[in-house]
């Protein structure tokens, strides 16, 4: 019994320690971000790795999620004779919820885990240490460009996801369900508000991008420098990102759409 309480205490202390370390780490990184203005090349390179290389999975998922939404929405709406509103349903679901959330989950699995593994391996093979001995700060040279690229890439990926989802929904609605194309768009235009729905979706995707990238780079930088340490850190990135995104999504939804 006493051992259980002791374990609980130890786990709590470890968790608090990690929160503290990751906050300090984030603070140092943010302080170093302005220096990247002089080295845009570093950020662009990471934007390619994090953003462009994630495009395929994001695009394909976006199209399919949009198509499924149109199908599912249609079968419910048709009972009420409201099937012409399927465009609204697809667009609102995507901009408010599924776009930011699913993109962030995919982003954590695709780009976040890769970031953690890359930084962790650089640590395990002394590359970060050797950089320090060359008087190059690895936090600024290696981590900061990745963090910034993640911030920028994630909202853009979410936007692409939503766009393609709406397109996929259109194709299904017009070709399979017999909805008029004009109704699909005009219903959407009439019922989706920029200031409420789209702006809030953007706020969500910015938040998720920030948290997902922060978790990924911190786990990599803080991992135990062994192969097991790197593999655990990669797993933790995916798990923590998913939990953080889902938890924050509830919080943001409750705050923004009252």
């Amino acid at each position, binding site marked *: 019994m006493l051992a259980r309480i002791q374990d609980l205490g130890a786990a709590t202390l470890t968790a608090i320690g990690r929160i503290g370390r990751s906050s300090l780490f984030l603070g140092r990184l943010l302080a170093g971000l302005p220096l990247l203005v002089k080295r845009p090349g570093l950020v662009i390179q990471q934007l390619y790795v994090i953003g462009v290389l994630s495009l395929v999975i994001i695009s394909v998922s976006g199209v399919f999620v949009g198509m499924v939404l149109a199908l599912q929405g249609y079968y419910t709406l048709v009972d009420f004779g409201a099937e012409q509103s399927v465009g609204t349903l697809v667009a609102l679901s995507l901009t408010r919820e599924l776009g930011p959330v699913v993109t962030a989950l995919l982003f954590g699995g695709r780009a976040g885990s890769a970031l953690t593994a890359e930084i962790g391996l650089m640590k395990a093979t002394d590359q970060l240490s*050797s950089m320090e001995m060359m*008087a*190059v700060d690895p936090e600024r040279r290696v981590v900061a460009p990745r963090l910034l690229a993640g911030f920028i890439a994630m909202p853009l990926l979410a936007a692409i996801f939503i766009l393609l989802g709406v397109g996929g929904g259109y194709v299904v609605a017009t070709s399979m369900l017999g909805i008029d194309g004009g109704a699909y768009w005009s219903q959407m235009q009439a019922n989706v508000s920029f200031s409420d729905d789209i702006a809030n979706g953007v706020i969500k995707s910015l938040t998720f991008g920030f948290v997902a990238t922060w978790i990924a780079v911190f786990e990599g930088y803080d991992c135990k420098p062994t192969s097991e340490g790197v593999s655990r850190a990669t797993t933790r990135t995916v798990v923590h990102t998913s939990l953080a995104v889902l938890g924050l999504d509830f919080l943001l939804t409750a705050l923004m759409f009252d």
Partner: protein
Amino acid sequence: MPSSQDNGVLVDVRDLRVARGGRPIFDGVDIQIRRGEVTAVMGPSGTGKTTLLRLIGGQLKPDSGQVVVEGQSVPALSRSRLFRLRRRMGMLFQSGALFTDLTCFENVAFPLREHSGLPERLIRHLVRLKLEAVGLRGAAGLYPAELSGGMARRVALARAIAMDPKLMFYDEPFSGQDPISMGTLVQLIRQLNDALGLTSVVVSHDVKEVATIADRIYMLADGRVVESGTPAELQRSQSAWVRQFMDALPDGPVPFHYPAVSLADDLLGEDSA
């Protein structure tokens, strides 16, 4: 300037104490590294030789005692002053620690591009010269994964001297090398030291190789310096530590057995449990 500059001491370590996880690694270590010399730090595995280099390079802080490089106390330096000091230091890691996604050429160019602000054409010339110095100009386009262990270490050496450091650290440069590349590295360390006017610190447990190039040897054991002097003086030393290490005796002050309860107790204890 402090007086340590006058008598030719570049790195002055005094009464250094470091403990890790309750176990003392250094328990009052004094080491003076003189300008222009090759100083070797030897000792059995696990005596904190690598830790010593990290302390001098400022990657770790001691619990107490002083580490002074060029008259500056390393643990007390601010981050930016420490980074400025490190530009005059080079370190060869045991693993080489080359950037695996960059070619040899780009590895050597890395510190120059980060710090020198030189035009690209000049950097290309400099990198070729550094690679030529370690005999690997021809390997410039290869990736670290395509190199043998010895070659990787020489490329890492070229990268470490790219910024023309004053002080070079070598962490176990000979471990895991075949006799040919071992001989090459031994020669390179001495030649670079003399030709470029470096001060070198070699951390190693390869007695024979180190004895041929070192001007001075410090022998670490049990958290202290147990003996120091020229290689010839160490050969004559009667210290039990030195004799065991130099003559590779299996048992001595460094015990063959890891500390444990007696074998009889261990075996009997298991039966009664």
